[in-house]
């Protein structure tokens, strides 16, 4: 059975959800994610305070929710989060270090994002999700990390898991996907990628 029931991939060139390109950058000077925030009319002022990692996770999760359409049917403690990346929070770590060196007045709001798992907190706060969460740091995406952790969460009562691979430091390479305990795609679902194929198609990391 295919664990993946919906996915969203964000790169610098486009955002694709379930095989369909939903956004491409405009000629606007704004960063791509900010363009999507406005175009999707997300209206969440806290977005502007987030670091790049959290912005990417926030936008991806919002688009995935819209694509799926049925996540609100789950209880607030029935959705878990399984995220990972290869670079932890180094994008914001560097900006925080620069703010300290340049102004000797390091920004508290940058400091709070110098942990990678904050992105999961932002998504949980936005959605009022109280399920379990885990964030791993790996050199390369590890599909067993996602599938094994999802099974563990399902066994503990969660009914859906939002998985994510979020690298943003050297360009956007973000993949978010949904796995649901009671809703699986058949293994032969025409053309729909499973977990390994998703990472192969999008990253060529495996």
């Amino acid at each position, binding site marked *: 059975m295919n664990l993946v029931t919906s996915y969203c991939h964000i790169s610098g060139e486009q955002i694709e959800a379930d095989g369909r390109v939903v956004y491409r950058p405009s000629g606007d000077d704004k960063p791509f994610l900010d363009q999507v925030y406005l175009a999707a009319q997300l209206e969440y*002022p806290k977005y*502007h305070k987030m670091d790049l990692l959290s912005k990417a996770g926030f936008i991806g999760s919002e688009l995935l929710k819209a694509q799926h359409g049925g996540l609100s049917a789950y209880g607030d403690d029935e959705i878990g989060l399984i995220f990972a990346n290869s670079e932890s929070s180094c994008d914001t770590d560097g900006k925080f270090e620069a703010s300290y060196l340049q102004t000797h*007045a390091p*920004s*508290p*709001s940058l400091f*709070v994002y110098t942990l990678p798992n904050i992105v999961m907190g932002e998504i949980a706060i936005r959605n009022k999700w109280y399920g379990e969460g885990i964030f791993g740091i790996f050199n390369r995406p590890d599909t067993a990390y996602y599938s094994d952790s999802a099974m563990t969460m399902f066994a503990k009562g969660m009914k859906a898991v939002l998985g994510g691979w979020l690298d943003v430091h050297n360009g956007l390479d973000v993949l978010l996907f949904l796995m649901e305990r009671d809703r699986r795609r058949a293994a032969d679902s025409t053309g729909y990628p499973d977990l390994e194929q998703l990472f192969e198609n999008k990253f060529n990391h495996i």
Partner: protein
Amino acid sequence: MDSLKQNLKEHIIEQLNLEEVQPADIADDAPLFGEGGLGLDSIDALELIVLLEKYYGIKVTNPEEGKSVFYSIDSMADYISQKIN
């Protein structure tokens, strides 16, 4: 005093990344924290402390002062005026 308040609002918007807020949206007497005002949080409070030092050279050393100083634009402007003069 009015130019100080305008200046303060512009610094707050920039420092706190309040991109959907204009200076005119911030009433001088509205609470900066909690409902009914800007809805700032505890991290924003730290940013306001940094802002006072960065733009006005004022160090808030007494934590007890914070609640009254950062209540509104009016209270912040009063505090800055007292410290500068």
